[in-house]
């Protein structure tokens, strides 16, 4: 067993874990943050994307111990006081989800894309940047629209962005 201490969605957590514990297992099983999903075992689908120190990572390919002394944000941690994050709101408004299983990872990747590529990110860039996220339901059409709209909306909500 190894001790890990990290901040998850603004809360400090410390736990003893088997060293082989993946970050996604730690989030889902130890912390019961089940919004982060597992869709594959080859780091291909992106259902597990969270932010580690502000950057998107696949939590299925990250050990919990690698997140020691880090700040992790999951899908449960991005809305503020009952208001959806602009990217969450954009996915809802533009029907960027159907079964919802890929959605947390998509939204966490999308926020990261905006952080890296800016609020005016265009459709082709969004499609290329979503290379690490699979969705089997939507055909991506509405996800792309949602990410573009969410990117614009994030420019209008700087406070929320900063809070992350």
């Amino acid at each position, binding site marked *: 067993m190894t001790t890990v201490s990290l901040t998850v969605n603004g809360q400090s957590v410390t736990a003893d874990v*088997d060293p*082989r514990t993946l970050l996604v297992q730690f989030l*889902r*099983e130890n912390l*019961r*943050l*089940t*919004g*982060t*999903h*597992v*869709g*594959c*075992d*080859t780091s*291909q*689908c992106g*259902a597990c994307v969270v932010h580690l120190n502000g950057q998107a990572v696949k939590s299925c390919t990250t050990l919990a111990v690698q997140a020691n002394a880090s700040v992790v944000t*999951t*899908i*449960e941690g991005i*809305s503020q006081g009952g208001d*959806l994050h602009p990217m*969450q*709101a954009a*996915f*809802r*408004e533009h*029907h960027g*989800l*159907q*079964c*919802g*299983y*890929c*959605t*947390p990872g998509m*939204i966490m990747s999308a926020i990261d894309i905006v952080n890296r590529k800016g609020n005016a990110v265009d*459709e082709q860039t*969004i*499609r*290329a940047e*979503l*290379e690490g*996220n*699979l*969705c*089997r*339901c*939507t*055909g*991506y*059409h*509405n*996800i*792309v629209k949602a990410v573009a709209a969410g990117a614009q909306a994030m420019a209008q909500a700087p406070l929320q962005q900063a809070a992350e």
Partner: protein
Amino acid sequence: MTATGIGAPVRRKEDQRFVTGQGRYVDDFNRPGQAHAYFLRSPHAHAAIRSIDTGPATIMPGVIAIFTGDDLATDKIGGLICGWMIHSKDGSPMKAGPHPALAQGKVRYVGDHVAVVIAETLAQAKDAAEAIVVDYDVLPAVVDTAQATKASVQVHDVSPDNTVFNWHLGNKDETEAAFARAKHVTKIDLVNNRLVPNPIEPRAAVGEYDFGTDNYTLYTTSQNPHVARLVLSAFIGVAPEHKLRVIAPDVGGGFGSKIFIYAEETVCVWAAKKVKRPVKWTSDRSEAFLSDAHGRDHVTHAEMATDENGKIIALRVHTTANLGAYLSTFSSSVPTYLYAPLLSGQYDIPAIYCEVDGVYTNTAPVDAYRGAGRPEATFVVERLVEKTARELGQNPAEFRRKNYITQFPHVTPVIMTYDTGDYAASLDKALEIADYKNFEQRKQESVRRGKLRGIGFSSYIEACGIAPSQAVGSLGAGVGLWESAEVRVNPTGSVEVLTGSHSHGQGHETTFAQLVSDRLGISIDQVSIVHGDTDKVQFGMGTYGSRSGAVGMSAIAKAIDKVIAKGKKVAAHVLEASEGDIEFKDGRFGVAGTDRSMAFGEIALQAYIAHKFSGQDLEPGLKEGAFYDPTNFTFPAGVHICEVEIDPDTGVTKIERWTAVDDFGVIINPMIVEGQVHGGIAQGVGQALLEGAFYDESGQLITASFNDYCMPRAIDLPSFQVGMTVTPCPSNPLGIKGCGEAGAIAAPPAVINAITDALGHEDIAMPATPQAVWRAAQKSRMPMAAE
């Protein structure tokens, strides 16, 4: 149309939980004291099991129990079943081999279930599984669909030549006669590639047993929890039906693969009682590739006969359908009654004859995958129509138009009665949206850049709204395919709808609430949709085959009509009028010709307090149920046009434009319907360009992860242009035809027709990968190939 009624693009009610990570999928459930199951799977495609030694594994850390097929047999747990009986041409029943949940004596595909380890943690269960010693006598395997009946290998004793059935449909003599007098015959050989459904949520199950009450609970990733309960109780015998509660909570996509009743959930329920602990199993993706039922896998030769006027006069088709190593739950119906009846497409074809040989191989079971039989039929028809038009030198759009069915109802030679449609209207709209008239110009522009451009059509039809119970019963179905609904009005006027449909991405919590809102004049916020729990919903047949709108919502509409009828009786007492004078309009019960009226919610309260009528005259309460059995299939149809540009140097096919014009009848929520179309197209494009499940000669699945099996990603797809035409369906009260599978059905031939148009010859198989397209481009006589 009200803001939340029928036809409004209402934002989805379910999304609040999904975008915030609050969805509850099966793997999110953790039961007190739960143990973890891991299945030891066969590494061989075909082997006799000489012995299984679990001894060393049993004493490993954390191991609670290890079970094999012998343990299931001892407890008299039955095998998995196939619920649709197909009879061969000679009248003999299909040859169904045994399908034990854990292997008994033999394994028949890589991934077949050999033993289950139940341990305190998943890691411990996996470690112990590695310590189980299985002595296999490895046998040669049969893998290839077309060669299955000629192989010396025998998958099941009941079928010496691996044939499950030799089935046929249509009129052979008339078809032969039409071919004899044909002016032109077009022939084609096609492979409909094997696919892995791959919903992003893998399958999962948690079984639980309560010793105090003798009740079992199964949480499972199911599209049809009541059917799962029925099969698990009546056929497999793990628990009596009234003692088994099956819960299918949020389910992360299904596409058919979560219809079936698999070994894993069977074992989890059974083992929970054996080990006196809840037992949880969650598939990883590698297991999903090996053991989820696959889709498609047809090898087909087809011929189309035309007369001197370019009219199609006959079609004959021979298909070999690979059903895998075992008959999965609905597998036998897919290449038969869900396939051949669609071979008339949108065309007036007087004579059709189709033969299908279902075969066993040492591969994963094959069953329904989005479209189920209809994409395979559409691929045959639309590839043949396109090729015929080209051979006759006719414009492919106009050749289709000339052969469209225009009079309804239309009875096809393959047992379908098309109720309504306007195929030319969809074609016209699609041609306009696709800017077809300027295609030549775009093509020349591509040529100037050294690229090849092609356009491909697909005039698809599908049979949805599955299905009239009597009709499917006469065709071999083991169940009726009606749907049920219960509408419970609360004293405060809010409404719960209990439905036998199941939503795993379709948005029923929104669309079903829209129907209630529309009919009862209440806000959708006043409506809750309850589904996916056999303890709450009395019975239901579930969601597949685009049936939840046409069949599931029709049941709700019927129950709402009964609620309104009962409400009128209550209103008559409260408003002191005769029942015949009560009208229900805009959410109010009123007395005709007066201004006396009461809101729906007020009457609901009166129904429950029951002060204004005597219990002898009228029962208190406001709750009604209905079963709706459809009178016909529904026939969504449309035209998809795909325009591609191919780089002959790299073989990369880029979809430049996608136009979809569909007639789904009446639409409840256009936003959701368009989303269904997008998703279907993506899966169809995946089949055409990227996806293929391939086994090597020894039966190893060589495309067994997302690294090797190419799923469509955002960059592989364009934005889609979606248009609609509407001919309301006459056979159900809402006029709905269904939309869930259209894209997956329409897309593959549209893509391949576009590629073959660009390349100038017909020889390309799915998936048309860059390598395959590059090879074809080199072979073709296009000027580019000379380089």
